[in-house]
Structures are given as structure tokens and as C-alpha cells.
């Protein structure tokens, strides 16, 4: 039997984390292939529905990553994201999903190694936790 390969959806801010992921690619930094990146203009625009739809579609984990408080292009995006993330954590927890499935990161443009490390760590954690209960409907899809 093949080893379980988790599917991770990462919502990355255009200005920092997306660029970091880009640089990770051009600098040939190795990281697991399990992550699919969705570029958003700011981490502050991520709505709980984005994450719930990701789980509905069969994702095993979701990362929301953006600039740190001082780097934000739009002054207070990360603050908005933090407030949203607090509520989202409550929803996901009540739904019965493990806390490891949701992660909030602040990764600056120059920190492509951090990005690779976060993905690696999360893939490791998700392999331990196992597939998401909502994945059952989408078993036909492979990474």
C-alpha cells in the first residue's frame, strides 16, 4: 500500500510568503510536493470560507501565511488575519479536526528556507495524524 500523502492548501500573501515560495523554487530549495499554493493579495483577506471550502474539497491541512506585522503592504493585514484565525480555529476545532491541520505563519520574502521548513514539518505532522475525515469523498484524487 502506498504511503499516505497529505494534501496541503497554502494561502500565501502576494508580497511576502508567495515571493518566499517563489525564491525557494528558484534557489532549488527542496521541500515536499504536497503543498498547493493559492496566491492572495494579503493574509488579511483570507475568509473562513476559503479554509472550509478547502476542507470540503478534501484538503488534509491548510496554511495561512503572510507578512509579519511590520512588513504588511496594507498596514494592518496580519492583525485582521489574526482576528479571523482565532475564530477559524474555534470552528475547525468544533468540527472535530485536529489542531495540526490548520497553521498560521508569518514568512517574509527572504525567508524561503523557513517556508520549506514549515511545509516539511506540517507534512510530517499530517502523516502522523492521518487523512482528514472529509477526504473520504475525494479519494479518487491523488496529489
Amino acid at each position, binding site marked *: 500500500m502506498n504511503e499516505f500523502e497529505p494534501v496541503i492548501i497554502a494561502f500565501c500573501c502576494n508580497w511576502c510568503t508567495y515571493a518566499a515560495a517563489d525564491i525557494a523554487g528558484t534557489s532549488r530549495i527542496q521541500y515536499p510536493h504536497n503543498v498547493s499554493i493559492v496566491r492572495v493579495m494579503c493574509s488579511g483577506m483570507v*475568509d*473562513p*470560507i476559503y479554509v*472550509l*471550502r478547502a*476542507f*470540503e474539497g478534501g484538503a488534509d491541512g491548510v496554511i495561512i501565511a503572510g507578512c509579519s506585522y511590520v512588513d504588511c503592504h496594507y498596514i494592518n493585514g496580519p492583525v485582521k488575519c489574526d*482576528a479571523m484565525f482565532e*475564530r*477559524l*480555529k*474555534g*470552528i475547525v*476545532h*468544533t*468540527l*472535530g479536526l485536529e489542531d495540526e491541520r490548520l497553521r498560521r505563519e508569518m514568512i517574509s520574502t527572504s525567508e524561503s528556507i523557513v517556508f520549506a521548513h514549515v511545509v516539511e514539518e506540517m507534512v510530517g505532522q499530517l502523516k502522523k495524524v492521518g487523512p482528514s*475525515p*472529509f477526504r*473520504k*469523498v475525494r479519494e479518487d484524487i491523488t496529489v
Partner: protein
Amino acid sequence: MTLDDIIKETNTFYCLECGKCSSICPISRYNPAYSPRVMVEHALLGLEDDLVYNRELFSCLTCYACQLKCPSDVNYPLFIQKMRAIASNNGEHGECAHSGTLQSLTRLVTNPAVKQRRLEWLSDEFRTSDRSDVLFFVGCAPYFEHIFDFETKSIDIVKASLKILNYFGIEPVLLPNERCCGHDMLWTGDVETFRRLAEHNAALISESGVKKIIFSCPECYQTFKENYPNYVKIDCELQHISEFLSEAIEKDELSFKETKRKVTYHDPCRLGRHMGIYEPPRKVLEAIPGIELVEMKHSKEESLCCGTSAFTNCDLYSKQIRVERLLEAKDTGAETLITSCPKCQIHFRCAMVNKGEEKGPDVEIEVMDMVNLVANALEEKN
């Protein structure tokens, strides 16, 4: 179901075009683009596409105000419910409020593998049991706490209800993996999701072996009582907590402390017009010594709506309806607006938090659920 079947089932054919529905409709008063009479007329002319792809199809609050006024007994809310099922099959879902988070959650819990953690708020002060004749249906309150960015107090309603049940020595069963009742799904046309939720709940309830289910949410109560029998079988007595309390008051089983407060009561549409329960909550409020109950200009059958149903098409008009209702409550001189629906409370609180000139004047009034008032006024038993 085709348009013809719907017309037959809901008596739409008997429409006299008198326009009473449009004159009483809370949405029509603010939104000139929406009129129940025009909707019915379109159906009778066979203009199915004009109905299905009309944004206003999802504006209806299904508040039953038109139904009670109609001289030909056209079941307009049912007509809307069935039309939305057709619209939903055609990919029209209305504009879901809160980006559709609530709808998405409801779809997620249809999964049989899901193991929710919905009872984490439960503390030692409440007594529950695994085997009992009475089940308390918690509803969506554990989710509401996290979805909204203002205080909803939904979980407090559940806690107060448990406190009341414990007061009578009832230790109810709470289902740790109970699903959403599916009310919003049925009324926005997603019948398949509704059916699945109903099956899950029916299985869990028959497994628990209870004889009676008590609800604090009128929407769950109405759905279980009126819509579940069409899909599943539930052999239990169903009761809203206000009925339970008014029965207890008749038997004189309750003693209250003096609570000085002037209140007014808002009838939720599901409990009032849908189920016809107007008197029990009023009886409960009047039984508390010190409570002065004043009626608003529109009450009972005439009661105004809280402005949104099923978290769909919540717009400027919904806000205006809410502000109108809040102003009416304020006009009575009452300190507190009492309701018995957690969703009415959410909508009113939202209207007070989100201010803006176009939404009408700012208004502040304390909003509270009936069970909270009762739980606070209960005298400790020795």
C-alpha cells in the same frame, strides 16, 4: 418537481391577485424590486426562468406574514421553498451571508465520518446523563460562538436551558455528534443535504432511545415538527422550552425571585406564525414577579421580522427591517427586548454593531433570550 406540480401543491392557482401579500411583506416595504404577487404571477404565466434566475427569489424571509393574510390560502412560503429547490438544481443559491461559512459547515457535517467536539463548553455545573427520557437538542450554538465577530450569546441560551431543566431534576441527554437540523438547507433549496442531515439525526435519536426532545431554537423545533416527517420517522414528543415552561407554571412548579424589569417580547416567525405559539412565552414572562411586559406596535401574528432567514440575501433592506423593529421596541419604553430565537438575537445584535446612516438611525437596546431571563430569575431550591 416541476413548476406545474408546485403550483398545484401550493394552491398558487387560486391567487386572486389582490396584493395583500405584497402589502404585508416586510421585504416589499423596503425593496420595491420584490413583490410576492409578481412572483406568483410569473409562476402562473409559466415564466420559470424569470423566477429561477431572479435574485429576489432568495430575498423572501419565509416569515409567513403573507400566508396568514391570503384570502385564497396560497401557501407562498412553501412555494418559495420548492422554487428554491429548482433554482438550487440550476446552480442558483442566493447571496449567502458571511461568505457562505454557515452553509459550508452544514455541508461538512453531513459526512458520516465527522466526530465533532461540540460539547466542550459543558462544565460540571450542569447535570446531563447518557440515558434519560429527555433529550435536549443543542443546535448550532457551539458554532455561532466562533463564526461571528461580535458576541452572540448563543451558548448562554443553551446553558440557561440546561439550568432550567436541571432545576426540574431533569438530566437530559445531549448528543455529542448531533448534526445541524438542516433548516437553512431546506429553505435555500439544498434538499439533498437536508435529507442526509435528517437521516443522521433520526438515527442518533432512535439510538439514544429518548421519548421527548426539548428545543431552545424555534427553527430546529419547527423543522423537526413540520419537515422531518416527510423524510424520516421520529417517535418522540417534541416541545419548545417555552411550552415546557408554561406547562410547569400551570402546575405551579416554579418559584421566581423578584426581578424588576420592563420588557417587550419579539415573536420569532418560526415559533409564532409557523407554529402558532404566541401565548406560552408571554405566560412565562408574566409569571416572573416584577416583570412588566409591554407589547410592541406589531405583535403576535402582526409581528415584524428580524430581517434575514437562512443567512441568505442579507442586505441593506434586512438592516432597515431590523432597525425598524429595534426602534419599535425602544418606543415601548422597555429596557430589554426579549426573544426566544438565537438567530433573531444574532440579527438584532448585528444591526446594533454595524452602524451606518443608510441603515437607519443608531439604536441601542438590550436583547436577551427568554430562557436567560427565566434562568436568572429562578429561585434556588433548598
